[in-house]
């Protein structure tokens, strides 16, 4: 039977729509001209300029401090939460699930303003620490969801076998559960890391004097700075993101081949 061609054409159009702006941006990061309208030959001058901008290095340092601490804490909290959600089927877990799920759908700006008001109300100094608290609050949910998905196709007879062989809970968690869940936890952690280094809106609300992260820096460059420099910085960040996605894809693919085997 002849199928409609509309789905194919839509898919092609959407992919062009998705990637054209990104390609134009990447190509222009190598443009010698200051202006986006004219091409004056290939050049790496914007990348070289980037390395001499002290503010960017400072912002990068802050971003990485926040991203690493957020990733570690949300991986621990998210994994434990996913385990609780999967293992127990009680009213408490239904409330727990709602609590984990809601931050995923609440718009950024509401999370940002509510955390700002909270920090102002209890009198915490705004800065990297408050950014870390805010980022962890939404990353826990993402990690929990990724790990929960992995637990759902997890073979629990392995745990029963370990129990029968006399392993205690601690041994089971460390020697059986954790190694088997490691790819899922790592994928969740990478998601948390990417979300943390990319977050602008929530960070903008809870940041304090001196605590500039990379997205905050990019935002002020978009508002006041020079476009070619942002093109170069964006291209570097895009490459980093592609590498992370590739790793995650690899982590999940390994699993799939195992299942088929």
């Amino acid at each position, binding site marked *: 039977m002849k199928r409609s061609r509309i789905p194919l054409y839509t*898919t092609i159009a959407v992919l062009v729509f998705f990637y054209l702006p990104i390609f134009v941006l990447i190509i222009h990061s190598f443009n010698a001209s200051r202006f986006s309208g004219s091409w004056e030959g290939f050049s790496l001058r914007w990348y070289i300029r980037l390395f001499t901008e002290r503010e960017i290095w400072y912002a990068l340092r802050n971003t990485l401090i926040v991203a690493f601490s957020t990733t570690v804490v949300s991986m621990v909290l998210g994994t*434990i939460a996913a385990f609780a959600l999967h293992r127990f089927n009680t009213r408490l877990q239904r409330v727990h699930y709602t609590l984990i799920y809601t931050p995923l759908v609440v718009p950024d700006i509401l999370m940002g303003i509510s955390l700002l008001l*909270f920090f102002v109300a209890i009198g915490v100094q705004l800065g990297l620490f408050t950014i870390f608290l805010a980022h962890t609050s939404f990353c826990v949910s993402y990690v929990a969801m990724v790990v929960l998905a992995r637990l759902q196709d997890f073979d629990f007879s392995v745990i029963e076998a370990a129990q029968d062989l006399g392993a205690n809970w601690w041994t089971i968690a460390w020697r059986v559960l954790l190694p088997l869940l490691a790819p899922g936890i790592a994928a969740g952690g990478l998601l948390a890391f990417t979300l943390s280094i990319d977050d602008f809106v929530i960070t*903008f609300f809870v940041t304090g004097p001196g605590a500039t992260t990379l997205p905050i820096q990019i935002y002020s460059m978009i508002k006041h700075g020079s476009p070619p420099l942002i093109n170069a910085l964006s291209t570097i960040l*895009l490459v980093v993101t592609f590498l992370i996605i590739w790793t995650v894809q690899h982590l999940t693919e390994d699993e799939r081949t195992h299942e088929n085997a």
Partner: protein
Amino acid sequence: MMNPRNKSFGEWLVTLPSFVWLFILFVIPTLIVFTIAFKPADPWGGIGEGWTLDTLISLGNPNYPAIIWRTIWLSLVTTVVCIALALPMGYYIARAPARWRRLLLLLTVIPFWTSFLIRIFAWKVLLHPDGYVKRALVFLRLSEEGTMLLYRSEAVLLVMVYTLLPFAILPIFAAAEKFDFRLVEAARDLGAGKLRAFRQVFIPGIQRGLLTAVLMVLIPALGMYIIPDLVGGPRSEMVGNKIAQRTFVDRNLPHASALSAGLTLAVMAPMLVVLMMQGRRREEHEVR
């Protein structure tokens, strides 16, 4: 094995860490938003003593209905356009051969992972008066030299569709992947046209994924702040911009809270509708 008391202790032990964290840093802050909406502002940008309804009354200010109305229609149009594009695309990816499916899925996920800010900036460059889109439109005589593409509602709409479209494609694809396409073929064999089979068999079959897709686009769109801030102008502001202005420009936190409380309620409305629809479907299922 473990006795029940031990078991419930174990459950509390693994539930408490995330529960306490989110209770303190998500539930309490949300409640604070609703409380501060009833507090007066003090002249130093803080929160004053006592209780007042003045903040809520000042929301009747003639500027607001226009902004609220614009927020709603921009979000609704964004959702309709995203769904209209995501439906055929999700359908196509689900029916593609396995190798193609993986590639197409990857190509859909990449924008989802890349920085929001960078993707908005890319459009700002394209729509700039010297940018390629403008020059192409002038060349095709679709636009005049003096027309401004940036800083208007259409630009906000375009970029919102651009950033939120992956959120619509993924749930629709996930539902379409589980859909039994032989049902569509059966409908065709029984004489239904292409469009009719799509509308009356495929769409109801992926209803849950479709509802998720609507929520995933509509909710962030209602709370959008950064897109109208960067590619919009004073005449395309949304509620999110007002919240940010009240917070950073005039430092009137009670006013920002009142707006945020309203936005929270507005966001909960579509969520409740979808939850109810899903609940009803589940009941029907159980009856059968």
